[in-house]
C-alpha cells in the first residue's frame, strides 16, 4: 500500500463507516416504523439529528472529566475502528490482533462511564452500573467463541481468520463450520449492540435514559456520532469472525444489512429483561453453547 493511498484511507475510512452507520440507523427507524404501521422518518434522519445537536447554543457540562470523557468516547471508538480490517484497508491489523481490538473496545465504555459519573446524577450512575454488568454478561460468551476459533486456527490475528475462511469458501465460514459458536456469538452481539431484550442501559421508562440523562447539545451529538460508528464496527467484528469477512465493499454492505436486519427483527418483538435476568440469560444460554462448541473443537484437535 503506497503512502498516498494509506493517507487517503486513514482520512476516508471513519467517514465511510459513519455514512454506513447513518444508513443503518435510518434503516432501523424505518424498519420499526413499518412494523408498527407508521411511515417513519427519513433514511438519513440520524444525520439530521447529529447536525441539530452539534449546532445547539447551550452546552452544559459538569466539569473537565465530563469534557474529556466525550473525547475518550469518540477517540477510543476511532482507535478501535482502525484495527478492524475491512475490504481494501488492513494496514493497522499488523500492529494488533483480535485481543487488542476487544480491549480497545473498552476504552469508549470507560470514557463514557467516567464522564457520566462526573455528572453526579444517580440515573446516569445506575445506567453505567447496568452497562458494566451487561458488559460482563455478553463479553464472556463472545470472548469464548473467539477463543474457540483462535484455538482451532492457531492464530489470534483477525486477518488470518478472515483469510482462512475465504480460502475455504462458504463451508469454512465460522457460522457454518462452528455453528454453536456462531449462534452463541450472535446472542452476545445482540447484547453488545444494546438491542432488546438486552436493552437495559438506556431504559427510558425506568432511569430517564440512563447515561444520557445529563448529556445535551454537542455532548449528546458526539455520543450519537460514536453510536453510529460503533454499530457497523461491532457488526463487522461478527462478519469477520463468523461470516467469512468480505472481499469487496458490495459483499460487505450486503452482509452488514442482512445481519442488521436479523438483529433489529429480534429487537422488535421483545420487551426488556431485568438486569440480572439479562446477565443470567447470557451466562446460562449463550455461554454453555459456546462452551459446547469449544469442547467440540478440543475433541477434534485431540
Amino acid at each position: 500500500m503506497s503512502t498516498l493511498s494509506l493517507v487517503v484511507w486513514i482520512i476516508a475510512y471513519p467517514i465511510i463507516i459513519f455514512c454506513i452507520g447513518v444508513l443503518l440507523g435510518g434503516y432501523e427507524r424505518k424498519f420499526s416504523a413499518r412494523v408498527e404501521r407508521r411511515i417513519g422518518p427519513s433514511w438519513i434522519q440520524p444525520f439530521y439529528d447529529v447536525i441539530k445537536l452539534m449546532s445547539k447554543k447551550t452546552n452544559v457540562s459538569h466539569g473537565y472529566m465530563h469534557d474529556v470523557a466525550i473525547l475518550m468516547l469518540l477517540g477510543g471508538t476511532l482507535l478501535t475502528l482502525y484495527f478492524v480490517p475491512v475490504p481494501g484497508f488492513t494496514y493497522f491489523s499488523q500492529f494488533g490482533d483480535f485481543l487488542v481490538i476487544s480491549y480497545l473496545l473498552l476504552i469508549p465504555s470507560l470514557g463514557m462511564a467516567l464522564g457520566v459519573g462526573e455528572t453526579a446524577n444517580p440515573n446516569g450512575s445506575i445506567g453505567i452500573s447496568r452497562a458494566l454488568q451487561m458488559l460482563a454478561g455478553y463479553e464472556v460468551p463472545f470472548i469464548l467463541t473467539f477463543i474457540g476459533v483462535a484455538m482451532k486456527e492457531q492464530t489470534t490475528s483477525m486477518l488470518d481468520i478472515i483469510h482462512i475462511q475465504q480460502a475455504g469458501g462458504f463451508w469454512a465460514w465460522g457460522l457454518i463450520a462452528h455453528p454453536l459458536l456462531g449462534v452463541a456469538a450472535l446472542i452476545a452481539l445482540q447484547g453488545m449492540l444494546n438491542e432488546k431484550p438486552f436493552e437495559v442501559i438506556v431504559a427510558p421508562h425506568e432511569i430517564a435514559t440512563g447515561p444520557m440523562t445529563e448529556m445535551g447539545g454537542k455532548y449528546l451529538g458526539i455520543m450519537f456520532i460514536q453510536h453510529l460508528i460503533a454499530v457497523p464496527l461491532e457488526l463487522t467484528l461478527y462478519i469477520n469472525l463468523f461470516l467469512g469477512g468480505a472481499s469487496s465493499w458490495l459483499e460487505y454492505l450486503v452482509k452488514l444489512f442482512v445481519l442488521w436486519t436479523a438483529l433489529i427483527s429480534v429487537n422488535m418483538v421483545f420487551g426488556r429483561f431485568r438486569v440480572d435476568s439479562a446477565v443470567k440469560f447470557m451466562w446460562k444460554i449463550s455461554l454453555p453453547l459456546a462452551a459446547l462448541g469449544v469442547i467440540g473443537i478440543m475433541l477434534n484437535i485431540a
Partner: protein
Amino acid sequence: MSTSMLLILPLAGFLTSLAAAWIVPASSKARASGTVQKFIAGIGFTALFVFAFLAKGEIGTGYLGIPLFGLWANFGLTQLSWYFVAMVAGITLVTVLFSLQGLRDDGRYSFYYVWLFSKTFGMLGVLLSADMLTFFIMWEVMSWCTYFLLQQGHEKAKRAGAGYLVYAVTAGMILLAGLLYMYFNVGSFDFRTIQAAFSGFDAGRIIVAMLLVLVPMLIEAAAYPVHWWLPSAYANAETGISAYLAAISTRIGIYGMTMFLFAGFGLTALNLVTANKYVSANEVLMIIGAFTMVVPTFTALFQHDAKELMTWHSIGQGGYMIVGIASSTTLGIAGGLFHVFNHMTYVSLILFSIAAVEYRTGTTNLNKLGGLIKKQPVAYLGLLFGIIGLAGIPPMNGFVSKWLIYRALILSGHPFIALAAFIATLGTILSVYKLIHNMFLGQLPERYNDIKEVGWGMRLPIIFMMAVVWLTGAFPGTVLAVVADIQQSLGLEPIAYSAHGVAAEMGQLNMLVINIVFIGGLFVSWLIYHAGGKRKHIGQYDNYAAGHFLDKSIPYNYNYNFYAGMDHIFERALHKPPVKRAEQALAAFVSGMSEYVRRIFTGNITTYAAYVVAAVVVILLVLGGGR
C-alpha cells in the same frame, strides 16, 4: 561488592533507625524521632536503589559466603533474582518517598522504618540466597518482619497481623520439612547440587519435595484457597505499607515458585512423573491460578472499603502470574514475569491515590466518599491511570502482560483457563469503576467542601508512578529485555520482543502505534468537539431530578450496593464462601481443643503436684516395663 551492600545497607538502616526510635522514644518527641527516622530512611533506601542497579554487573559471579553456626550461608545474584531485587529496591524507595509526607507523626508508627528496613533485609536475603538453608532462614526473617510491619497502627491491625502469622508460620514449617527432606535425600543444601541430584530421583520423591516447597510459595503468594490471611492483614495496615506489601512482598512467593519450577528442580521432571492423558502438574497449578484470578476478583466487587477492595485485587492479579508462569510457554512465562512488574507499578499507584484521599478525609469507606475529583484532581488522575493498568486496558502497561498471557493460553490449547482470565478482567473492570466512581465521581458530600489536594511530597510520587505505568505501556521492550534475559538464563526460549511490544514472529502487538492512533483519535474528536458551541460548566445541584429542585440537604447519589444485579446473582456464593467456612470450622476446632488443654492448667498447686506424681509413676512404669 554491590551484592553484599544489598544485605549490609538494610541491616545498617535497621540498626540506626532502631537507635533513633529508642533514643527519642517519648510520644511528645514523636515528631523529632519521626524526622530523624525519615531522614535515615530517605538516605538508606536511595543508596540501596543505586546499589541494586550497580549489582547488575555482578550477576552470576561473586558468591558470598557467611559463616553461620558452623555452616556457610551462601548468597549470590542470578538474572531472576536481580529482576526482583531491582523491583524491591525501586518500590521501597518510592514508598519511602511517599511516606515522608504521607505518614503522620502521631506516635503510632514509631517503628515504621525500623521494620521496613528489616523487612527489606529479609526479602533481599530470600532473593539472594543460594542454598536451601539460607533461603529458609531469610524466609523466616521476612515473615516475622512482615508481622511486625503489619502491627504498626491501630488495634484492628494487630489482630489481623496475628492472622497473617498463623499462615506464615504454617508456610515456614512446611518449608522446613521440605528443607530437611531434601537434605536427607541429597546430603547438601546447595541449590545446584540438589537440582543435579533430583533428575535421578523416582516419581514419589520428586512429588513430595515439590509439594513441600511449592505450597509455602503459594501461601505467600496468597493463591486460592490459602488466600484468606491477605485481605484483612493488608487492608488494616497503614496505606503506604499496604501498597508496599501488595506490590512486592506477596510476589516473593512468585519468585520462589518460578525458581523452584525452572531454576530449582524443574517443571520438566515434575511433568514427566505426573504426565498422563488428562492432567499434568503444570495444569494443576494453572487451575489453582484460575481460581485465584476469578474468585477474589468477584469478591472485590462487593467490598465497601477502598483498601479492602484493592487487597482482593492484589490476590486476583497474582493468579495471572501463576497461570502465566505455570503455562511454561515462552509467551506465558514472559507475561507472568512482566505482570509482576506491571502489578507492582499500578497497585502502588492506586494505593498511593487512596492514601492521598485518606490523608485528607480520614476514611476509605466507599459509601461515605464521592465527588472528590473537584478537590483532589491529581489523586484522581493517579487512580485513573492505575485502574486502566489494573483492568488491562491499552495503552497502560497492564495490557501488555495480560495480552501475552491470553495469547499463550489460547495457543497452547487451554481455552477455559483463558476464559477465566477474561472473566477476571471483566470483574476487575466492574470493581475498579465502582472504586473510582464512589471515591471521586458522583455527588460531593457537604462535609468535604473544604478539602484541599495533598502536598507535593505526595503528589510527586503519584505523578512519577503515572509516568511509569504509561511509559512502560508504550515501551514495554525496556522491561521485556530483562525478562528475555531471565528466560535465557533459565534455559528457556526467550521472548522475541521489540521496543514497542512483541516482535512479529510471536504475534502482533505494537503499543506505540496504539498510542499514536489513540492520540490521533482524541485530536479528531477534539476538533469535532471544538466545532460545536461554547460549553458552560455548572454545579452539581444544577441537575435533572424529574421536576424536583436539588439543594445540599438532598443526598442525590447512587453508590451503595453499586452492582445490585450481580449481588442478586452471586448472593449465595458470596455471603457464605466455602473456604471461609472451612477456615472458621478449623479455628473453632482448634480453639475447642485448646479449651481442653487449658483445663490441665487449673492454677491449683495440689493438681500440679498430682501431675508430677503421675508423671513419675508413668516414667517408672515405662522404664521398668523395658527391663
